[in-house]
């Protein structure tokens, strides 16, 4: 949990300091991709707490999910159907799911 938070804080700092911007037309895709990435990170934290963290699965999920989510948003834009709802729903759902499991693991550890 803590290392992920520190990582995000460092990333935000770097992001604000770097003069890195992109076309504002891609904001929708990037925001959906961010959601997918956050889901992957929560999944990674949970796997780490459960002791079965696999870097391959984590990295491939992180990149693959982000690309798939952005692609869905893009396709939805082309077709005129907001397909990115699917990504938002799935990853949002899993985000809370993962967070619930993390909470349970942490509280059970503290009890022990």
């Amino acid at each position: 949990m803590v290392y992920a938070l520190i990582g995000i804080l460092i990333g935000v700092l770097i992001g604000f300091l770097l003069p890195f911007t992109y076309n504002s037309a891609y904001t929708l895709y990037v925001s959906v991709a961010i959601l997918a990435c956050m889901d992957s990170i929560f999944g990674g934290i949970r796997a780490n707490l459960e002791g079965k963290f696999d870097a391959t699965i984590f990295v491939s999920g992180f990149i693959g999910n982000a690309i798939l989510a952005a692609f869905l948003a893009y396709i939805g834009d082309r077709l005129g159907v907001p397909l990115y709802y699917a990504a938002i729903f799935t990853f949002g759902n899993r985000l809370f799911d993962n967070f619930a499991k993390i909470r349970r693991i942490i509280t059970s550890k503290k009890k022990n």
Partner: protein
Amino acid sequence: MLSLLKKNKWWGDNMKEFNPKLTIGIFSALVGILFASQVKMNIQMVTPVTINSIQRLELEIKSLRTEVEDLKLNIEDKQNYLTLIEDSNHSEKNIISVLEDERDKNMLLAGFKTVEGPGVEIVMFDNINSDELSFDFNDGIIHDVDMQNILNDLRVAGAEAISINGERVLSFSDIKCAGPVIRVNGRSLGTPFIITAIGDPKLLMASVSAPGTYAEMLTKVYGIGIQPYTKDKLVIPAYSGDFSYSYAKTVQ
């Protein structure tokens, strides 16, 4: 794809031996960078683009384009008028004749000119069949409301000039019941009423004879006589009275 990644000689099987906390931390930093760059863009709201919104925008653009076209035509019109006035300085057509043309045009539009053209003539009379009278004898009589509704139907059909028994009906004309007669422009008119209207004869005819119109209801239900005829040439007299505003003033 996963097996490919695993067999990769640079990552190899020691991928699993990466420090999980470090890996997660590094990728969290990546998310943070993306997040910060997104925040930096300062976007108020990302609204989804739906087919509906696209169509709405398209309609809006279309109407704006037609408006622009109209305005362009308007500009052209005004410019023509301007050149006409400017040319009148050094040509045989002087400013007075230009202004007179203008006045004539405005008088025609206002209804102070006798006009002629194709249209319809409608003869209206009260229910003459005494045994068809219903409980209320008022039902068989033409009222001011009936007249106004029929005039309105004619205007909807594009009537350009209307008169009742030779009395020109203008925007300020009053139509009022006065016992057995109807007062138009303050003058009493008796039955039969002859409404003349200049416009597209087919459209005007339809507006007083088609099923569902007010005139059809009057004839079918109340037995009031309405006989429309199309005419190739009708003459509608000018408004004969004098009219001037005493309260309304132009806004400066």
